[in-house]
């Protein structure tokens, strides 16, 4: 098997699994889940084989997909250090989440659809990772959007899931509009959308970098990675099953936006990068504040994801794509861990998601709790854990380039520790605050195993020396570049102190402010307006809701009325008049008898035939 074939197998195995499930295993949920898990395992094996065989040149292959005139679309692989790193993470984390789902979804009536959806998702996600050109990225980009839609809507008889799935797809399409326009502009600008070729063209002539194209392409990132102002879909997407939130809406798909930026970094002029850095930083802080207004454990984690995606965007915008990728990978480990941990708790508490109805979970679910706490510490960037290394690097990069961004990102780190502390003190300690929490039980083996493995990765994942040599080339590159900047050592110390301080102040502060095992939100009680402001999240959902219901819908209704009365009124009568003038003057044309028209058709045709064949020449 050649390396290219290995990659093809990695891509097509989940597609085969999804097809098999859709056509034959619809009513055999258990079997479907095993097929899907086996496919996920196979992906990981193929990934390892491909990395073994990739060599120094990577794996490059391409096939023609469609050609019309000068327009050519191909499907191809660009398997280099960056994509290998991403694929390894997706395959591994994906596999663990599949295993977790075996337990979590065991009682679900539509298990086959769920696991089929997971397979479709893996297929689409791997397509994005391997793609060697923008059009192929876009194709799989839309497909992950579809699988996300399908899985958010899994509990399809709830209004919440119905609305959230629709919202996710439509909001993503808004970003994709810019992405699409950017792609077709790029095609005629560069003469290709192949990543390596575009890079070669820009290396030869950097004057060809276009801010318009870069900004348009970045719209795709804004939609998929749920950045301002298209962030509204991600918290709602928590209506999906928790493993889906872990896989798609934390570890992989939402991070695909960042991955996409890293892949096309050479297309970006400094101005657009700077804008992305500001955007990411703002989202990091905004989402950090918003998390304080949430009581649903999954929504808190969702805002945390938004915030961390902001950090990745900031790293990219500051000119360190490798560090963005680094944070993407470590974040995938601890955020998948946190979501799966939340899933384990929700499962144990009989689908209770309100943190103020939990409490005392630590005693009831010790393994889940310990792994969850490890995830929290990694997310907060506690010294030595994986999140420390990547967040530290981002803060240093910011610190060396601008005070405002640095201050905001440090504030973000403090906020992170604060809202995670709030969650931890309320959920894990104190007394159970509901019947569900009292009856909480530790989850089974298939759910605990992924938690333990991910906890281990959250601890050691940041030590690059442990990574296989083929992975992370670009990360090492960016880290070296950062090390060689002036003032690195001094800034390193500053960040170490400030970061640790933010972490400690956040965790302890929330301990003193909210208290252990609180039954209600102290902020809400003591400072209602502040809490209300945080909960409102700058009223984005309200504004968009108003626009959709009151402006867009009314405008559409108005056009609909215009269409019926004006257009039909004018043109139908107008055309009817023309028909009359055509001199066919029979009354049957005016009585509206359907048979009349049919006869006129036939007579007309016969008449034409007669004229044409010279039948009437005698007259």
């Amino acid at each position, binding site marked *: 098997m050649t390396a290219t074939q290995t990659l093809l197998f990695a891509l097509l195995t989940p597609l085969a699994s999804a097809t098999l499930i859709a056509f034959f295993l619809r009513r055999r949920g258990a079997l479907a889940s095993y097929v899907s898990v086996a496919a996920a395992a196979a992906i990981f094996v193929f990934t390892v084989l491909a990395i073994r065989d990739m060599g120094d040149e990577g794996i490059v292959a391409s096939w023609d997909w469609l050609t019309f005139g000068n327009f050519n679309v191909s499907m191809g692989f660009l398997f280099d250090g960056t994509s290998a790193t991403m694929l390894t993470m997706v395959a591994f984390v994906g596999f663990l989440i599949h295993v977790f789902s075996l337990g979590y979804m065991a009682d679900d009536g539509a298990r086959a659809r769920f696991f089929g959806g997971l397979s479709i998702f893996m297929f689409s996600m791997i397509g994005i990772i391997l793609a060697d050109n923008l059009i192929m990225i876009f194709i799989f980009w839309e497909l992950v959007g579809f699988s996300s839609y399908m899985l958010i809507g899994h509990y399809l008889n709830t209004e919440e899931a119905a609305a959230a799935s629709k919202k996710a797809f439509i909001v993503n399409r808004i970003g994709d509009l810019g992405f699409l326009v950017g792609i077709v502009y790029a095609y005629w600008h560069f003469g290709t959308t192949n990543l390596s070729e575009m890079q070669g063209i820009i290396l030869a002539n950097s004057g060809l970098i276009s801010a318009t194209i870069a900004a348009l392409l970045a719209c795709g990132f804004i939609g998929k990675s749920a950045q301002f102002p298209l962030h509204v879909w991600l918290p709602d997407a928590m209506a999906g099953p928790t493993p889906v939130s872990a896989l798609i809406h934390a570890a992989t798909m939402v991070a695909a936006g960042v991955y996409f930026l890293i892949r096309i970094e050479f297309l970006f002029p400094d101005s657009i990068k700077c804008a992305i850095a500001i955007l990411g930083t703002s989202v990091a802080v905004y989402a950090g504040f918003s998390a304080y207004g949430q009581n649903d454990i999954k929504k808190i984690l969702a805002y945390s994801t938004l915030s961390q995606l902001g950090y990745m965007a900031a790293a990219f915008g500051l000119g360190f794509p490798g560090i963005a990728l680094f944070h993407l990978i470590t974040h995938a480990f601890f955020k998948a861990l946190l979501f799966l941990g939340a899933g384990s708790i929700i499962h144990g508490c009989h689908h209770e998601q309100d943190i103020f109805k939990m409490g005392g979970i630590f005693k009831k679910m010790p393994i889940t709790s310990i792994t969850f706490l490890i995830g929290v510490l990694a997310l907060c960037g506690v010294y030595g854990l994986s999140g420390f290394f990547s967040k530290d690097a981002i803060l240093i990069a910011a610190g060396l380039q601008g005070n405002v961004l640095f201050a905001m990102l440090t504030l973000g780190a403090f906020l992170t520790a604060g809202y995670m502390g709030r969650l931890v003190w309320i959920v894990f300690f104190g007394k159970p605050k509901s019947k569900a929490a009292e009856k909480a039980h530790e989850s089974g083996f298939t759910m605990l195993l992924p938690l333990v493995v991910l906890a281990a990765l959250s601890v050691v994942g940041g030590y690059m020396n442990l990574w296989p040599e083929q992975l992370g080339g670009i990360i090492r590159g960016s880290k070296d570049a950062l090390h060689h900047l002036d003032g690195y050592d001094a800034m390193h110390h500053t960040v170490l102190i400030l970061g640790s301080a933010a972490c400690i102040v956040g965790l302890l502060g929330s301990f003193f402010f909210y208290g252990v095992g609180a039954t209600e939100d102290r902020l809400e009680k003591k400072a209602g307006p502040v809490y209300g402001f945080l909960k409102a999240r700058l009223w984005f959902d309200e504004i968009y809701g108003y626009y959709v219901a009151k402006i867009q819908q009314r405008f559409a209704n108005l056009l609909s009325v215009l269409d019926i009365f004006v257009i039909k009124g004018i*043109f139908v009568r107008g055309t009817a008049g023309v028909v009359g003038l055509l001199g066919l003057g029979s009354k049957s044309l005016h009585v509206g008898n359907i048979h009349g028209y049919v006869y006129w058709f036939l007579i007309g045709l016969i008449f034409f035939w007669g004229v044409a064949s010279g039948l009437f020449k005698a007259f």
Partner: protein
Amino acid sequence: MEHDTNSFILLAAILVPLVTGVIALLGGRLNTSALRSISALGFGIPLIIGIYLFCNFDASLIGEYNFELRAPTGLESIGIYLHLGLNAISLPLFLLAGVVGLAAGLYAMNSKAERLNLYLALLLFMLGGLMGTFASVDVFFFYFFHEFALIPTFIMIGIWGGAGRRGAAIEMTIYLTVGALLSLLGLIALYVTSGVDSFSLLELRNYLSEQPLSETVQSNIFALLLFGFGILVSLFPFHSWAPKGYAVAPSGAAMLHAGVLKKFGLYGLLQIAYPLLPEGGEHWFSLIVWLALGNILFIGLVTIAQKDLKMMLGYSSVMHMGYAFLGLVTFSVVGVGGALLMMVAHGLSVALLFMLATCIYHRSQTFDMSAMGGLATKAPVLAAFFVAGTMASIGLPGFGNFWGEFTIFAALAETEHTRWLVAPAAIGIIISAIYGLRAVANIFFGQPKEVFVAQLESDTVVDLKLSEKVPALILIIALVITGLFPRLLSDNANSELANLYPVEDTLPHHEVMTLPSTTDAHKELTH
């Protein structure tokens, strides 16, 4: 002219549905199973022939036709022959007619329509006409077969149409009559002014490429063809017949008309009007652009406002025609190729959706989407198929429609004077997502609306039956094949279109610096 067997096989694709149609019509006393077997032959054989001819298609005959057949008709004095044949542009549509015909036929055969034999006979006549339309090299027969297929549409709406069929049928008839007459006038004007004494498209094309008509004549004839064909394709603002007409049409007629027959107008513009009258196309460029944007944006928003499922589908089909027009106005191989893919894929998806709409109606007893909800729990396969159809129609990759839309967007960006159109046209992808997903959510997801609770609990609400699954699957599979392997259609069409449309080198040629190695590429840049 030499005729080989394949020429007669091509003729059979037209004759078999006609003959089986006559048998079904006259054999009123046939028992149901005999009727079904006979009509199954009539519906199935054209597709089998289509696939057979597809496999035997000789792509090297650029500018000519495969499987040519030329028979006298008594009209030789003015150059009319029964002249059949297929080229790489008509072949995809010929196949489309076969696929949709089979799906519509299979669905109709198992429907509970009254006077089933008449219903099937009319569908078979329609199918025969459709196969003939796309197999005609002679412009007169191209038009004749279209009219031949159109008449059964009116009759079917008149007899089996839904509530309000009278008004809708009259409106549809007036529009389509005017459209057909205008295009007929255009075709006759083409014949007369060219002075070539032949209705053969080949001879017209050869003659006009050497002696093109004057610009004024071209733009006048083009106007006749544009508005004639445009009305037939529901070009804005001549579209109002379409949503209402389809809303009342019985499913078989809606599938074949919206899916296939409507493409006659686009096909006429693509194969006849633009290549023969290029200056006419240039003259009317701006008007077509604005009308096409009207289709996409105005009608798109109107689609959002619809509450009736069939009206929504009808309007969305009108909206998507705007893309095809935008593909044509680029007057480039890319754009026209995109329009061709769009026509085929849209035909499949709209037929699928109209059929599923009827399946939904049989379960819900209403087309009002605001009075449904929660149907997916009782009918998961129906929900899955409807989602597939919706996703296809809103351009999800994996289905053919995506290639059509994407290629058209690419074509618009190819030259400076159409580049600005990409963004407004692409807003359509958001609009279509809104109405498509809203429909899915309203019909299938969430809790049933109060008025729908009792209906949803009744025994009539079951999942798709085999007789509904098979035709739906035929269409879905065809959509997926065009989505995954567009080259099956595009490679040959590309060479043929390059013969009809100008090919200019619009790609920039930049110097490319070779990268040190792919793994180090990013690393190098960051240093």
